[in-house]
């Protein structure tokens, strides 16, 4: 198998890697915000539920969560294991990443000075308006670097989908490495991940620049 063939074959899997990546971001970013808001709730019960959620999801390996989400429903309730592995994989990634995102959001929200809330109140903003129009844009600006960190980790974590036999790029790379007894696919995988992350880094850099308007 020539290098070109290896690259073509692995690119087919890249599509599936991208599917995990984008779908996870799509669901985890808003879910993380919901968890962060619940975590900051005045009601003890709600905030402790969110706290337990974060603690469990952050405290157990993603690999275990993947197995639990994929095979758990079958062992517990006898529901057939999903044939389209993308569904359990995205669910597992989303609930895991939402926990991390929630903590990042919280660090941003907590960093906003009380004076801003007071000023907004004086100016006649409602609580919702204050949050979405004044607090949130600044929070996003502040947490972008840590968010980028997590997103970069997500790109690399997609390779863990192999645990539940989802054939993403790295799995295909392993298969080729195996049949060809060659290390080339691993090098190719490394380059793929690096380029992917370089793009993520570039895009996030641009977003950061755009948001610098909200810098105080």
């Amino acid at each position, binding site marked *: 198998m020539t290098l070109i063939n290896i690259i073509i074959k692995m690119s087919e899997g890249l599509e599936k890697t991208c599917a995990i990546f984008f779908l996870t971001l799509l669901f985890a970013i808003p879910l993380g915000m919901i968890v962060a808001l619940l975590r900051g709730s005045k009601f003890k019960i709600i905030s402790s539920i969110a706290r337990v959620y974060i603690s469990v999801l952050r405290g157990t390996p993603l690999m275990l969560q993947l197995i639990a989400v994929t*095979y758990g429903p*079958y062992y517990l309730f006898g529901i*057939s*294991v*999903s*044939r389209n*592995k993308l569904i359990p994989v995205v669910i597992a990634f989303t609930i895991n990443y939402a926990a991390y995102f929630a903590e990042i959001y919280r660090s941003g929200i907590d960093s906003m000075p009380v004076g801003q809330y007071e000023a907004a109140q004086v100016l006649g903003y409602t609580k919702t308006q204050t949050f979405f129009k004044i607090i949130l844009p600044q929070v996003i600006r502040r947490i972008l670097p840590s968010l980028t960190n997590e997103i970069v980790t997500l790109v690399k974590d997609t390779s863990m989908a*192999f*645990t*539940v*036999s989802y*054939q993403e790029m790295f*799995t295909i790379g*392993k*298969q080729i*490495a*195996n*049949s060809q*007894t060659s290390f080339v696919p691993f090098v190719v995988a490394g380059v793929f991940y690096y380029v992917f992350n370089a793009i993520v880094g570039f895009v996030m850099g641009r977003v950061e620049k755009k948001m610098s308007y909200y810098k105080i």
Partner: protein
Amino acid sequence: MKKRVIALILAALIASLTFSLAGCGKSGVDVPVPAEKAKVFTMGIDPEYPPFSYLGDDGEYTGFDVDVCKAVCDYLGWEFKVFGVNWDQKLVQLDSNECDCVWSCMTILDSMKEAGYIISRPYFDNEQVLLVKADSGFKSSADLAGKDVAVQLGTSGESLLNEDLKDLADSFGKVVTCDSFLKCFTELEGNAVDAVFVDRPVADSYVAEHEGFVIIDEDLGAEQYGIAFRSGDEELCSQVEGAIDALVADGTYAQIAAKYTDIDEGNLIFLK
């Protein structure tokens, strides 16, 4: 200025540490190995491959291959050790000295010999079969056209589906590769796939222990198991082969085989 001094001191510290550590490694080699110290023989196995190599109820690795290797080590006076390899990286791990042999239902492939590995005489006649659910009604590989089939990554079954049985593989809906056979079986049990492509003895053992599964009686690929050693280890290989011959001669081998009723004795080449 101050920063630079600190940086220099740090660099010197790191350098001296590296050198002293490197020195440690060297001096360790210089110590002569006492003659009476037994040779340690590390066996590389797939730890999830019953009944040949698996984690027993007592938490120790067991299975037919493991027991034979243990007996070989006892016979030769070697200290016996087990190392669970990552099956799709087994030869890399053998090369990196993590184990001294790969001995776990390893199918002898020409590509291994071409790559320079020393392969022992074959000890087991194997065939690849399809395992399906009893209530699925599948009777032959042709019935599985358009259906999903699971196979373990790095096994001879996987390479068969990629090469000699490419047409069969193409007739399947999708070939799912899992990282262990237990995952393949879980996929089958949970209805995520319709069949598992697997070595005959593993399928036999699974059917014996779990209800509701049958093997499609169709020989899809004949092959033989052997033991792989690093290139240059001809002597080690012949020592192990010699010990196995002795165990076959004194009946120990047959005794071990009798312990594993799932293994068809007719396939054990040394007992023929």
